[in-house]
């Protein structure tokens, strides 16, 4: 074949440009074309009206057969309670009115989830509706996702979870030793048009669930009328769990 240097350079330039455009379009497309992005708003003050309440944790653990492993190193958690200092690292809470209040933490179902990027088997992926889902059949237990997640939202099953499940829910499988798990925003309930179990269980209605892409949704009205923060926004992951102050 007879290709002049000029023609060669032109062809390479155009193909490079084409590849770059496709990447760029894909990156933007996935965020902007999303019609649904499920999100959660946590009303910290409402939640704090019952400092001892664990209704959301209990109902979640029961619904998904989350084991209660006494050994902290092997703990498995989907939704859990922590202090503002831990939840919002880097903030100064010395004189804050929420300094002593409990904060409910869970998977943030990020816009750009780092766990999904590193998963070698696509056992975790971002669904059309924005949920960062889990496919336990594909998880090989490499724990890359745990290293990538800046929110410690993922737990590894270091031990067989079954001995630590008191009464198993037959509607949901357990997991086994060697896989990672986390909150899924109750995908099994969403496919039936129901809200996540924690939202339903909260006696103070402190958890508000909805589509943050829909400007008329309850969650969006809440977010536009009240001050709120997300966890580690500076990382650019785009968390979809919001904390109303």
């Amino acid at each position, binding site marked *: 074949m007879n290709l002049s240097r000029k023609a060669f350079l032109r062809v390479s330039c155009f193909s490079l440009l084409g590849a770059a455009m496709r990447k760029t379009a894909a990156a933007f497309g996935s965020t902007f074309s999303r019609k649904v992005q499920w999100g959660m708003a946590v009303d910290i003050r409402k939640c704090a009206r019952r400092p001892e309440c664990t209704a959301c944790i209990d109902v979640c653990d029961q619904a998904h057969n989350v084991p209660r492993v006494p050994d902290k190193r092997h703990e498995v958690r989907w939704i859990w309670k922590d202090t503002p200092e831990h939840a919002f690292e880097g903030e100064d809470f010395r004189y804050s009115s929420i300094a002593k209040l409990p904060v409910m933490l869970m998977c943030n179902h990020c816009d750009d989830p780092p766990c999904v990027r590193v998963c070698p088997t696509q056992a975790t992926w971002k669904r059309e509706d924005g949920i960062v*889902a889990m496919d336990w059949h594909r998880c090989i237990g490499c724990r890359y996702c745990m290293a990538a997640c800046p929110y410690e939202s993922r737990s590894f099953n270091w031990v067989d979870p*079954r*001995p630590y499940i008191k009464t198993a829910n*037959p509607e949901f*499988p*357990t997991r*086994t030793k060697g896989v990672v798990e986390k909150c899924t925003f109750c995908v099994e309930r*969403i496919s039936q048009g129901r809200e996540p179990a924690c939202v339903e269980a909260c006696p103070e209605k402190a958890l508000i669930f909805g589509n943050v892409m829909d400007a008329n949704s309850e969650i969006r009205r809440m977010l536009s009328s009240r001050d709120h923060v997300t966890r580690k926004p500076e990382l650019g992951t785009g968390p979809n769990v919001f904390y109303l102050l």
Partner: protein
Amino acid sequence: MRDRPVIYGGLAVFLAVITLPFWRGIESGVTTKGPELARPATARQCVASTEFMKSSHMLLLMEMRDQAVRSGDPWYVGAGHGTYTISLTGTCLEQCHGSKTEFCDRCHDYAGVAPGCWSCHLDAGHSTGSLTAMRSSR
């Protein structure tokens, strides 16, 4: 001709040894009939024909699993009529086949296959019992 007993004796021993597998088989009650399976709990035909299920239930299960988990669509339209909620425990076992031990396991033990599904998926009727006992029995 004095070694006739030796020859016939040797021949008898040879025949006994070479047919040993058959005797062993008869002794342990192996038949070509296959395992006795407990009939499905309620439905006579569930999601597909018996023939199809016999040959391809593992592929169907994979298909259902991918549909439910990856596509988030938990409803499967059966070959006949009717829609089924995809659930290994709730539908396959509880609604259609009853017991895992008397249906799936009997055939799998016979065929020498041990699917790993049950380390996570629960057996129907074992919801409140000892989960660890269930796993070690498999």
